[in-house]
Protein backbone atom coordinates (compact mmCIF):
# COMPACT_ATOMS: atom_id res chain seq x y z
CA UNK A 1 0.00 0.00 0.00
CA UNK A 2 2.72 2.44 0.85
CA UNK A 3 4.22 4.65 -1.77
CA UNK A 4 7.92 5.00 -1.46
CA UNK A 5 10.36 6.47 -3.91
CA UNK A 6 13.45 5.24 -2.08
CA UNK A 7 15.22 2.21 -3.41
CA UNK A 8 14.88 -0.57 -0.93
CA UNK A 9 15.10 -4.29 -0.52
CA UNK A 10 12.31 -5.49 1.75
CA UNK A 11 13.94 -8.91 2.01
CA UNK A 12 17.17 -7.68 3.52
CA UNK A 13 17.57 -9.49 6.82
CA UNK A 14 19.57 -7.82 9.55
CA UNK A 15 22.40 -9.99 10.78
CA UNK A 16 23.73 -9.94 14.32
CA UNK A 17 26.62 -7.70 13.25
CA UNK A 18 24.22 -5.28 11.58
CA UNK A 19 22.24 -5.11 14.81
CA UNK A 20 25.41 -4.41 16.77
CA UNK A 21 26.28 -1.70 14.32
CA UNK A 22 22.84 -0.12 14.71
CA UNK A 23 23.19 -0.23 18.49
CA UNK A 24 26.61 1.41 18.26
CA UNK A 25 25.50 4.22 15.92
CA UNK A 26 21.90 5.03 16.81
CA UNK A 27 23.04 7.89 19.06
CA UNK A 28 25.35 9.12 16.31
CA UNK A 29 28.59 8.38 14.47
CA UNK A 30 31.94 8.91 16.18
CA UNK A 31 33.14 12.43 15.34
CA UNK A 32 36.68 11.44 14.46
CA UNK A 33 38.57 11.37 11.20
CA UNK A 34 38.11 7.60 10.80
CA UNK A 35 34.68 6.83 12.27
CA UNK A 36 34.50 3.33 10.72
CA UNK A 37 37.86 2.38 12.23
CA UNK A 38 36.72 3.53 15.64
CA UNK A 39 33.45 1.58 15.35
CA UNK A 40 35.43 -1.42 14.10
CA UNK A 41 37.62 -1.38 17.20
CA UNK A 42 34.53 -1.21 19.37
CA UNK A 43 32.86 -4.12 17.59
CA UNK A 44 35.91 -6.20 16.75
CA UNK A 45 35.46 -5.80 12.99
CA UNK A 46 37.72 -4.45 10.27
CA UNK A 47 36.96 -0.83 9.34
CA UNK A 48 36.11 -1.78 5.73
CA UNK A 49 33.53 -4.27 6.86
CA UNK A 50 31.85 -1.66 9.04
CA UNK A 51 31.63 0.75 6.12
CA UNK A 52 30.40 -1.93 3.70
CA UNK A 53 27.69 -3.10 6.12
CA UNK A 54 26.63 0.49 6.63
CA UNK A 55 26.40 1.11 2.88
CA UNK A 56 24.52 -2.15 2.40
CA UNK A 57 21.93 -1.24 5.05
CA UNK A 58 21.52 2.12 3.36
CA UNK A 59 21.02 0.53 -0.07
CA UNK A 60 18.52 -1.93 1.40
CA UNK A 61 16.54 0.93 2.93
CA UNK A 62 17.13 -0.13 6.53
CA UNK A 63 19.00 3.13 6.97
CA UNK A 64 16.90 5.86 5.38
CA UNK A 65 19.71 8.40 5.38
CA UNK A 66 22.85 9.43 7.20
CA UNK A 67 22.77 13.08 8.07
CA UNK A 68 23.50 15.97 10.39
CA UNK A 69 20.00 15.93 11.88
CA UNK A 70 18.93 19.37 13.14
CA UNK A 71 16.70 19.87 16.16
CA UNK A 72 14.22 22.29 14.60
CA UNK A 73 12.81 23.33 17.93
CA UNK A 74 16.29 24.35 19.15
CA UNK A 75 16.85 26.22 15.89
CA UNK A 76 13.81 28.38 16.59
CA UNK A 77 10.94 26.58 14.90
CA UNK A 78 8.83 26.72 18.05
CA UNK A 79 5.53 26.14 16.27
CA UNK A 80 4.86 22.65 15.08
CA UNK A 81 1.51 22.30 13.37
CA UNK A 82 0.03 18.94 12.53
CA UNK A 83 -2.38 19.95 9.79
CA UNK A 84 -5.14 17.40 9.18
CA UNK A 85 -7.52 17.32 6.21
CA UNK A 86 -10.70 15.54 5.25
CA UNK A 87 -9.99 14.69 1.61
CA UNK A 88 -12.27 12.80 -0.77
CA UNK A 89 -11.15 9.16 -0.95
CA UNK A 90 -11.02 9.14 -4.76
CA UNK A 91 -8.65 12.11 -4.77
CA UNK A 92 -6.43 11.39 -1.80
CA UNK A 93 -3.52 9.60 -3.45
CA UNK A 94 -3.05 12.33 -6.00
CA UNK A 95 -3.57 15.09 -3.44
CA UNK A 96 -1.27 13.42 -0.90
CA UNK A 97 1.53 13.36 -3.44
CA UNK A 98 1.02 17.01 -4.32
CA UNK A 99 0.94 18.13 -0.70
CA UNK A 100 3.98 15.94 0.06
CA UNK A 101 5.89 17.81 -2.63
CA UNK A 102 5.45 21.21 -0.99
CA UNK A 103 8.94 22.16 0.22
CA UNK A 104 7.83 23.06 3.74
CA UNK A 105 5.95 19.83 4.47
CA UNK A 106 8.22 17.54 6.48
CA UNK A 107 5.97 14.50 6.36
CA UNK A 108 2.69 13.65 4.77
CA UNK A 109 0.63 10.53 5.36
CA UNK A 110 -2.77 9.05 4.74
CA UNK A 111 -4.38 7.63 7.88
CA UNK A 112 -7.81 6.12 8.49
CA UNK A 113 -10.86 8.13 9.57
CA UNK A 114 -12.69 7.14 12.74
CA UNK A 115 -16.16 8.51 12.25
CA UNK A 116 -17.82 10.21 13.99
CA UNK A 117 -14.86 11.12 16.21
CA UNK A 118 -12.25 11.80 13.61
CA UNK A 119 -12.94 12.70 10.00
CA UNK A 120 -9.43 13.62 8.81
CA UNK A 121 -7.55 11.25 6.53
CA UNK A 122 -4.58 13.34 5.35
CA UNK A 123 -1.84 14.47 7.74
CA UNK A 124 0.83 17.02 6.78
CA UNK A 125 3.35 18.34 9.28
CA UNK A 126 4.51 21.95 9.00
CA UNK A 127 6.84 24.06 11.13
CA UNK A 128 7.14 27.77 11.79
CA UNK A 129 8.80 30.30 14.01
CA UNK A 130 5.41 31.79 14.77
CA UNK A 131 1.73 31.04 14.56
CA UNK A 132 1.09 33.06 11.38
CA UNK A 133 3.81 31.26 9.49
CA UNK A 134 2.12 27.92 10.16
CA UNK A 135 -1.29 29.36 9.20
CA UNK A 136 0.17 30.69 5.98
CA UNK A 137 1.63 27.30 5.07
CA UNK A 138 -1.70 25.65 5.88
CA UNK A 139 -3.46 27.99 3.45
CA UNK A 140 -1.02 26.97 0.75
CA UNK A 141 -1.96 23.34 1.40
CA UNK A 142 -5.64 24.30 1.27
CA UNK A 143 -5.07 25.94 -2.11
CA UNK A 144 -3.62 22.67 -3.44
CA UNK A 145 -6.50 20.59 -2.10
CA UNK A 146 -9.21 22.92 -3.37
CA UNK A 147 -12.66 21.35 -3.41
CA UNK A 148 -11.35 17.82 -2.75
CA UNK A 149 -11.18 18.86 0.91
CA UNK A 150 -14.26 19.12 3.09
CA UNK A 151 -12.66 20.34 6.29
CA UNK A 152 -9.42 20.73 8.13
CA UNK A 153 -7.84 21.79 11.39
CA UNK A 154 -4.38 22.46 12.76
CA UNK A 155 -3.19 20.81 15.94
CA UNK A 156 -0.40 22.88 17.44
CA UNK A 157 1.98 21.17 19.79
CA UNK A 158 1.98 22.77 23.22
CA UNK A 159 4.65 20.52 24.75
CA UNK A 160 7.03 17.80 23.70
CA UNK A 161 6.56 15.23 26.45
CA UNK A 162 8.81 12.60 24.98
CA UNK A 163 10.94 12.34 21.88
CA UNK A 164 13.48 9.68 21.12
CA UNK A 165 14.61 8.26 17.82
CA UNK A 166 14.31 4.63 16.93
CA UNK A 167 15.95 2.55 19.61
CA UNK A 168 16.85 -1.06 19.27
CA UNK A 169 17.07 -2.75 22.61
CA UNK A 170 19.99 -4.90 23.52
CA UNK A 171 18.71 -8.45 23.40
Amino acid sequence: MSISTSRSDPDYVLGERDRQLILATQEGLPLVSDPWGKLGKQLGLPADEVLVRFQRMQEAGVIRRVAAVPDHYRLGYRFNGMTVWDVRDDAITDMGRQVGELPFVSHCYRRPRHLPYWSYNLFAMVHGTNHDEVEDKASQIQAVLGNTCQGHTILYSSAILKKTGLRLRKT
Partner: protein
Amino acid sequence: MRLDTTDRQLINLFQRDLPVCDRPYQAMSRQLGIAEEEVIERLQSLQDSQVLSRVGPVFEHSRAGASLLAAVAAPEEQIDLVAARINHAPGVNHNYAREHTYNLWFVMTAPDEDTLDERLDELEHQLRLPMLRLPMVESYHIDLAFDIDWESLP
Protein backbone atom coordinates in the same frame (compact mmCIF):
# COMPACT_ATOMS: atom_id res chain seq x y z
CA MET B 1 23.41 29.95 20.15
CA ARG B 2 24.42 32.09 17.15
CA LEU B 3 25.32 30.12 14.09
CA ASP B 4 27.78 31.61 11.65
CA THR B 5 27.61 31.27 7.87
CA THR B 6 29.71 28.12 7.84
CA ASP B 7 27.50 26.40 10.44
CA ARG B 8 24.44 27.28 8.40
CA GLN B 9 26.02 26.06 5.21
CA LEU B 10 27.01 22.85 6.93
CA ILE B 11 23.42 22.23 8.02
CA ASN B 12 21.99 23.21 4.63
CA LEU B 13 24.30 20.84 2.80
CA PHE B 14 24.20 17.85 5.10
CA GLN B 15 20.88 17.82 6.91
CA ARG B 16 19.47 15.38 4.38
CA ASP B 17 22.49 13.28 3.53
CA LEU B 18 26.14 13.18 4.26
CA PRO B 19 28.68 11.13 2.31
CA VAL B 20 29.01 7.54 3.52
CA CYS B 21 32.57 6.93 2.37
CA ASP B 22 36.01 6.20 3.82
CA ARG B 23 36.53 9.61 5.37
CA PRO B 24 33.12 11.29 5.51
CA TYR B 25 34.23 14.42 7.34
CA GLN B 26 37.05 14.95 4.88
CA ALA B 27 34.59 14.68 1.99
CA MET B 28 32.36 17.22 3.73
CA SER B 29 35.33 19.53 4.34
CA ARG B 30 36.09 19.66 0.63
CA GLN B 31 32.54 20.72 -0.14
CA LEU B 32 32.66 23.41 2.54
CA GLY B 33 36.18 24.57 1.73
CA ILE B 34 37.42 24.19 5.30
CA ALA B 35 39.73 21.70 7.05
CA GLU B 36 38.52 18.26 8.12
CA GLU B 37 39.34 19.02 11.77
CA GLU B 38 37.17 22.10 11.58
CA VAL B 39 34.24 20.08 10.25
CA ILE B 40 34.63 17.67 13.16
CA GLU B 41 34.90 20.52 15.69
CA ARG B 42 31.85 22.29 14.31
CA LEU B 43 29.77 19.10 14.27
CA GLN B 44 30.82 18.37 17.85
CA SER B 45 29.93 21.85 19.01
CA LEU B 46 26.56 21.88 17.17
CA GLN B 47 25.80 18.52 18.72
CA ASP B 48 26.90 19.63 22.21
CA SER B 49 24.61 22.65 22.00
CA GLN B 50 21.80 20.37 20.70
CA VAL B 51 21.33 22.34 17.49
CA LEU B 52 21.99 18.97 15.89
CA SER B 53 20.20 16.13 17.60
CA ARG B 54 22.85 13.82 16.17
CA VAL B 55 25.17 13.20 13.27
CA GLY B 56 24.36 9.74 12.09
CA PRO B 57 21.93 7.28 10.60
CA VAL B 58 18.18 7.69 10.48
CA PHE B 59 16.72 4.21 10.55
CA GLU B 60 13.59 3.18 8.72
CA HIS B 61 11.17 2.46 11.55
CA SER B 62 8.99 0.11 9.57
CA ARG B 63 12.02 -2.10 8.92
CA ALA B 64 12.82 -2.54 12.57
CA GLY B 65 9.33 -3.44 13.70
CA ALA B 66 5.84 -2.03 13.92
CA SER B 67 4.72 1.45 14.95
CA LEU B 68 1.51 3.41 15.15
CA LEU B 69 0.35 6.96 15.85
CA ALA B 70 -2.35 7.11 18.51
CA ALA B 71 -4.20 9.84 20.37
CA VAL B 72 -6.34 10.17 23.46
CA ALA B 73 -8.58 12.92 24.77
CA ALA B 74 -7.38 13.30 28.34
CA PRO B 75 -9.51 15.37 30.73
CA GLU B 76 -7.63 18.65 31.27
CA GLU B 77 -7.15 18.07 35.01
CA GLN B 78 -5.67 14.60 34.42
CA ILE B 79 -3.44 15.40 31.50
CA ASP B 80 -0.15 15.19 33.43
CA LEU B 81 -1.04 11.84 34.92
CA VAL B 82 -2.21 10.42 31.60
CA ALA B 83 0.90 11.74 29.84
CA ALA B 84 3.14 10.13 32.46
CA ARG B 85 1.40 6.78 32.04
CA ILE B 86 1.81 6.98 28.27
CA ASN B 87 5.50 7.87 28.60
CA HIS B 88 6.05 4.88 30.87
CA ALA B 89 4.32 2.39 28.59
CA PRO B 90 6.79 0.11 26.79
CA GLY B 91 7.53 1.16 23.20
CA VAL B 92 6.37 4.79 23.32
CA ASN B 93 8.99 6.93 21.62
CA HIS B 94 7.14 10.20 20.94
CA ASN B 95 4.49 11.95 22.96
CA TYR B 96 3.27 15.45 22.11
CA ALA B 97 0.65 17.56 23.86
CA ARG B 98 -1.50 19.26 21.23
CA GLU B 99 -4.19 21.89 21.43
CA HIS B 100 -7.28 19.86 20.55
CA THR B 101 -9.89 17.63 22.23
CA TYR B 102 -7.49 14.84 21.38
CA ASN B 103 -4.72 16.42 23.38
CA LEU B 104 -2.07 13.70 23.68
CA TRP B 105 -0.49 12.24 20.54
CA PHE B 106 2.06 9.50 20.77
CA VAL B 107 3.85 6.90 18.70
CA MET B 108 3.88 3.34 20.01
CA THR B 109 6.48 0.92 18.64
CA ALA B 110 6.99 -2.82 19.02
CA PRO B 111 9.07 -5.59 17.46
CA ASP B 112 6.02 -6.90 15.54
CA GLU B 113 2.34 -6.15 14.85
CA ASP B 114 0.96 -8.55 17.46
CA THR B 115 3.07 -7.10 20.24
CA LEU B 116 2.08 -3.63 19.07
CA ASP B 117 -1.63 -4.46 19.39
CA GLU B 118 -1.07 -5.98 22.83
CA ARG B 119 0.79 -2.91 24.01
CA LEU B 120 -1.94 -0.59 22.73
CA ASP B 121 -4.71 -2.69 24.27
CA GLU B 122 -2.89 -2.79 27.58
CA LEU B 123 -2.33 0.97 27.60
CA GLU B 124 -5.90 1.71 26.55
CA HIS B 125 -7.15 -0.48 29.38
CA GLN B 126 -4.83 1.20 31.87
CA LEU B 127 -5.80 4.72 30.81
CA ARG B 128 -9.53 3.93 30.63
CA LEU B 129 -9.74 6.31 27.68
CA PRO B 130 -10.76 5.41 24.14
CA MET B 131 -7.73 5.52 21.91
CA LEU B 132 -7.70 6.81 18.37
CA ARG B 133 -5.49 4.42 16.40
CA LEU B 134 -4.09 5.94 13.24
CA PRO B 135 -1.84 3.57 11.35
CA MET B 136 -0.13 4.91 8.26
CA VAL B 137 -2.10 3.84 5.19
CA GLU B 138 0.02 5.55 2.56
CA SER B 139 3.19 7.58 2.88
CA TYR B 140 3.50 10.44 0.38
CA HIS B 141 6.55 12.11 1.75
CA ILE B 142 8.95 11.65 4.63
CA ASP B 143 11.75 14.11 4.87
CA LEU B 144 12.36 15.13 8.40
CA ALA B 145 14.57 17.83 6.96
CA PHE B 146 13.12 20.87 5.24
CA ASP B 147 14.75 24.00 3.83
CA ILE B 148 15.67 26.24 6.74
CA ASP B 149 14.85 29.91 6.29
CA TRP B 150 17.73 31.29 8.38
CA GLU B 151 16.62 34.91 8.09
CA SER B 152 13.28 34.17 9.70
CA LEU B 153 14.76 32.55 12.78
CA PRO B 154 14.75 34.48 16.05
